[in-house]
């Protein structure tokens, strides 16, 4: 399992980056925290915390309503955050960026507003066994409600999508392809651009779950050729409660709103309602505008550091960890064994120790990892395990933290005598 990384860009100044994250200097039971659960959520830099604090301390007021200075400043900051997200994704228009609470809400928006109008009895929804529950359960339930069919494409033994099977299923016809850009359970990156083109050739609409992609790599919605793409802010240095759906204008214009209420209307009488324009038609009620502004600050931070460099940094950590972890007797690593088309997620098990026991022992050494099914139960079933232990990296992780992980694996084996 020899893996090497040839950096294309200058390495990150990780010490300097870490200084921006107050939580990373915390200790747990006297030990410095080793945070390796970034696929679950990321830590927040001072710049994001400050951007949010400034709203509360300097000009907080509801957006799109007040005809006074505070409201105008908050509205401007909120809409500027939207523009930042649009630029990050290379969206053709800011009107195509809808703020939601998280990727889950984003998929539900598409499933309810687009899906219920467009998925008919007998239609085929093609998806994959790599999907997070957030990009699986909404489609499964929609299919049950309307009498459509869900087709789940398998992976190979290294956790890569079975492209042959996917192509064959698409050729049989599909109304929708729901596909994750990057697997949260295994770190596999799917060739979405290629797959989206195949899906479009058979007339399918393409929904991309980019929750594990937007935080870690450059994502260009136009280059990918997606129709809808969703992500969460909290996995990319922004607060929970922030996230977005990007969709093509033509599709969004035809769709009914997802939620009804304030702010999503242009005119209401006792007998009818006219919808607001895009994107506000989909943003009913007071938005989590401070969270969205925090997301804008996170986009600035990630852009300043450079997502290309972040991706290379994470791959260098995976390249360091994989052989060291893989050589430990009794350790099984799930997912890609090379650095090609993958991100900084390493899922593994230690023979004879349940992942929850592994994580509890790691916790004694202040090493934070996720143990469980990762909202990937169909994938766990496919792998034939109830759960895995997962370490996931971000821009602030270090080689020393990989060493700490290897040390606690040995410690866990010692405790259990395996």
């Amino acid at each position, binding site marked *: 399992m020899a893996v090497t990384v040839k950096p294309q860009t200058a390495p990150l100044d990780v010490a300097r980056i870490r200084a921006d994250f107050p939580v990373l200097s915390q200790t747990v039971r006297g030990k410095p925290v080793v945070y390796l659960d970034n696929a679950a959520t990321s830590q927040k830099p001072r710049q994001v915390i400050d951007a949010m604090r400034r709203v509360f301390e300097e000009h907080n007021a509801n957006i799109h309503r007040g005809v006074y200075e505070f409201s105008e400043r908050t509205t401007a900051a909120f809409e500027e955050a939207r523009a930042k997200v649009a630029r990050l994704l290379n969206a053709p228009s800011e009107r195509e960026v809808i703020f939601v609470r998280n990727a889950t809400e984003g998929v539900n928006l598409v499933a309810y507003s687009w899906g219920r109008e467009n998925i008919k009895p007998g239609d085929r929804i093609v998806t994959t066994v790599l999907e997070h529950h957030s990009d699986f359960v909404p489609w499964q339930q929609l299919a049950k409600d309307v009498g459509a069919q869900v087709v789940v494409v398998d992976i190979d033994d290294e956790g890569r999508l079975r492209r042959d099977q996917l192509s064959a299923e698409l050729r049989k016809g599909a109304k929708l392809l729901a596909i994750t850009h990057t697997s949260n359970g295994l770190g596999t990156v799917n060739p979405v651009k290629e797959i989206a083109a195949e899906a479009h050739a058979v007339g399918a609409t393409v929904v991309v779950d980019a929750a594990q992609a937007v935080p870690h790599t450059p994502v260009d919605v136009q280059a990918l050729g997606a129709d809808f793409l969703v992500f969460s802010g909290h996995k990319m240095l922004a607060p929970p409660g922030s996230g977005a759906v990007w969709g093509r204008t033509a599709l969004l214009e035809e769709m009914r709103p997802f939620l009804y209420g304030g702010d999503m209307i242009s005119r209401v009488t006792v007998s009818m309602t006219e919808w607001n324009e895009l994107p506000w038609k989909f943003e009913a009620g007071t938005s989590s505008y401070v969270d969205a502004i925090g997301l804008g600050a996170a986009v600035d931070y990630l852009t300043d550091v450079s997502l290309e460099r972040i991706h290379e940094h994470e791959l260098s950590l995976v390249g360091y960890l994989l052989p060291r972890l893989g050589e430990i007797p009794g350790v099984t690593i799930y997912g890609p064994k090379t650095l090609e088309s993958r991100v900084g997620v390493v899922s593994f098990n230690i023979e004879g120790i*349940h992942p929850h*026991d592994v994580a509890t022992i790691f916790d004694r050494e202040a090493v934070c990892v996720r143990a469980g*099914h990762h909202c990937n139960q169909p994938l766990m079933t496919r792998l034939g395990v*109830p759960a895995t232990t997962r370490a996931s990296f971000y821009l602030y992780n270090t080689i020393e933290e990989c060493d700490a992980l290897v040390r606690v694996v040995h410690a866990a084996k010692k*405790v*259990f005598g395996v």
Partner: protein
Amino acid sequence: MYRDYILDHYKNPRNFGELEGATHTYHDSNPLCGDEMTMQLKIGDGHVDDVHFTGKGCAISQASASILTEEVKGKTLDEVKAIDRDHVLANLGIPISPARVKCALLGLKALKGAAWGLTAWPGEEVKAK
């Protein structure tokens, strides 16, 4: 937390395996961790003549169930029904963090289900869709 006796019960579970002639059986699971647990009782004359469990999962869930089976043998059915969570957690003798309480109590839940002759846990009868 992983004291020797906990690891011993995990690796060498007591009263483990299918119970022939069981009068009461209840299966439960914790989908969050994939833990599975079946408790079987053989009740004669209101007493637990025998008890077995089968399951797979983490050390805490399996050790807790194993310790529990040792305790209930010979007890009356009413005494089994009266065992509460605090008793089980105290009996385990190790600190259990909030995230692991469900593991520690899975054996008790299955035991109660068996003792009360349940087919589904109250409040959990909701069918999947």
